[in-house]
């Protein structure tokens, strides 16, 4: 008897799994290859500037860098499959331990920034859309567009530095850097979220303007339904798909943006770890951190696709058709 499967979900999930696997395989190959292209001899760096040739060679052998490249790659792949990312060339710590210690710092400011982004951009976007509905308050529309475009154009490190100058050095309200307590999470999170807040609030404002002109929203206004209820109950659900899609992509991007922000705030997350690892030619940590960030980004994208399919089954069909 032939089993008929009418649901598109199995095929959809299979395609997503294949895409995820392909991306991760590419990441494994790329992370191994890229660090080999970085100039400089890791054995010399690890041994020290004035180490004798004998000490340098001993260091090279100790790090396993004297073995053929294919052998090193094989060990790297087998290690990844076992969940063993090797040991730091500099400190000898397990790379998985380095990631376990430092990932929460990056994840915390990324998630805090994401939360700030969603709360502020939805509020701001809806407010501006409401106030400018029907071509009212055109000055506000222009001011909003100019301000968000300008702030969005500021690089993370400029925003971070300005925040430090204002809130830490000048006003003395918040720590300038480091992890000296809960208050030290605020400035890095704000620095990371400012650009995304501008981007998402512009999308929300544009989408909300369209939704607010729909007939059902006119009807709601005609029935004298309260503004908050109008927006929260009737308008917002129609914005969630685009907002969440964009937010998911921004969250993946924040993991990269955190690298710069962590440097400005001496934040002990993965971003600082990978910069130090690159400068110190610590291949193992460089590969491990980039692979981890890459897998997280790929996973976020995959989850967004699945989430969108759950919210709107039309995307499920589109994905299946395109696959």
């Amino acid at each position, binding site marked *: 008897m032939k089993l008929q499967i009418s649901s598109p979900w199995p095929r959809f999930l299979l395609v997503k799994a294949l895409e995820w696997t392909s991306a991760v395989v590419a990441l494994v190959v790329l992370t191994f290859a890229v660090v080999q292209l970085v100039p400089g*001899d890791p054995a010399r760096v690890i041994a020290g*500037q004035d*180490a004798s040739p004998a000490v340098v060679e001993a260091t090279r052998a100790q790090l396993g860098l004297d073995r053929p490249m294919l052998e090193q790659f094989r060990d790297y792949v087998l290690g990844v499959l076992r969940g063993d990312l090797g040991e730091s060339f500099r400190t000898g710590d397990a790379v998985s331990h380095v990631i376990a210690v*430092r990932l929460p710092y990056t994840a915390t400011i990324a998630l805090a920034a994401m939360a700030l982004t969603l709360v502020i951009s939805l509020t701001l976007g809806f407010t501006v859309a409401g106030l400018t509905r029907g071509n009212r308050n055109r000055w506000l529309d222009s001011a909003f567009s100019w301000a968000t475009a300008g702030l969005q154009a500021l690089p993370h490190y400029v925003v971070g530095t300005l925040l430090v100058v204002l809130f830490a050095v000048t006003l003395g309200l918040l720590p*300038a850097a480091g992890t000296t307590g809960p208050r030290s999470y605020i400035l890095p999170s704000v620095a990371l979220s400012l650009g995304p807040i501008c981007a998402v609030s512009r999308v929300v404002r544009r989408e909300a303007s369209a939704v607010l002109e729909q007939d059902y929203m006119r009807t709601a206004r005609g029935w004298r339904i309260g503004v908050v209820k109008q927006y929260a109950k009737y308008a917002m659900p129609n914005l969630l798909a685009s907002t969440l899609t964009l937010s998911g992509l921004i969250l993946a991007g924040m993991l990269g943006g955190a690298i710069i922000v962590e440097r*400005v705030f001496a934040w*002990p997350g993965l971003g600082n770890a990978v910069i130090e690892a690159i400068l110190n030619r610590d291949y193992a940590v460089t590969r491990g951190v980039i692979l981890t960030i890459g897998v997280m980004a790929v996973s976020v994208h995959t989850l967004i696709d699945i989430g969108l399919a759950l919210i709107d089954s039309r995307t499920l069909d589109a994905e299946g058709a395109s696959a």
Partner: protein
Amino acid sequence: MKDSTRRRGPLAAAVGVCLLLGALAGCAGETSTDSESGGTIRGALITDPTTFDPALVKAMDDYRAARLGFDTVLRRDDGSTLVGDLAESYTQNDSGVTLQIRDGLTCGDGSELTPSDIAASLQRLADPDTASKAAQLIFGGSAVTVTADDDARTVTVTTAKPYSELAVGLTHPAAGIVCPAGLEDLDGLAAGTVKGAFSGPYVLSSSTTGVGYEFDLRSDYSSWPEYAEPLEGTPAQTLKFTVGATDSAANQLLTGSLDESAVAYQDLSRFPEDSFTKTEAVIGDMFVIFNETAGRPFADAAARKAAAQAIDRSALIDAINPGATPDLGPGDPGLECVNTDASLLTEPDADAAAKVLSGLKIQVVGSTAPAFGTNGAATTYIAEELRAAGATVKLTNSDNATWIGTLITDDGWDISVLATINTGGTLVTGLSDVVGAGLEDGGRNFTRSDNPTATAAFERGIAATTTSEKCAGFQEAQAAALEAVDFIPLATNPQTIVTTKGVTVRAPGGREDLSTLRTVG
């Protein structure tokens, strides 16, 4: 009137979000204790120490950690003098050094530290299998035998060849004494987890890679170095170091997050004298080096002299760090036996330089590390001076690892600026970078110079049995190297340590030593 509580709304929301997420992620930051109330001093490390095994120190933060956890038998004091640490006195002759060890020494676990234990630690440092890169500087490179007499409380370090810098070498942080518990567990020693390994005033009490390190003062420790000017104040009960704060150290000091940190010279003017103390130290020295490998442009002494004539030392030092003290040799003016004769240096003469350098193809390589000026200012300046003299210059400034990778090869570069890490404060550190055997021959000489006069004088200085003989040899070596323009002395690589009110630190012999951190007042 404006409602201030409403304005605080977004901030409070942000705090709330952060607290919630911090709690969820289990990573809420730690709260620092103020130095005035809790006996804690908060400092900064550039990066994680690569090891807590003093014999294997490589980077600046390794040296810092070694100074806290492991005492040496002798210590440097100001004015090139040596003072007792674990040893109360010493004598040196042409076969080595005999040390009289103090009574009542203990390790981090409270066990007794005997002269035999000290001898075992030094013997292990000298063992080629240990692969200590500092061993050559400390012991001079020949075979070493270390013996002890527990009854007489002496330790004797004997070298197969005379080494005039042996006593000075024993002050090097890498010569920190490891207690028996550490020698029995080398992995634990390297990780800093063996409390009984520590012989110094502090033990590592907690560490989180990439985040921070804490050291606790040993309650039974009393063998502080006997500096001519005793340290004032009280040692902190806890030293708490944040990692990776280099770029933000000035801001953290100004906002009260740190009590002590080295600060870049560009930021020093931000610290008012009445609220902060600035302590000057030296990391090492900088000098221009040439690649004298046969076939390279600077294998020709005339070309090196022309380059020295093209380069204005004062302007170059200003480009690197206006606060640096000019050197006349491969070491700072405070070092024993360093050259003091300014006439040995080549005077600037742009016209003469142009006659030789015009048309030469020169590869300038440099590092963008802050020690070399902003974005490789040192080598950028040299490249422009050489261009102005008519040379065809290719400038490559890169990160430290790439630069040093180029420098250790004998091709791909012609001229660069070298900076030493001279934590031990020996002239040999800088001199051996420009005189003697080249890197390919097991030496430390980056220039690959062929200067028999300088090399012979250097070896005489190494093998000398008296200070006057040592200095005669080293000064002749410096004079010969300067005459041949094997290098151009530049300046110290200075380090200004800023401390907040109530915290002091000293730099004995001009070198940073975190074990001298004290709370005062």
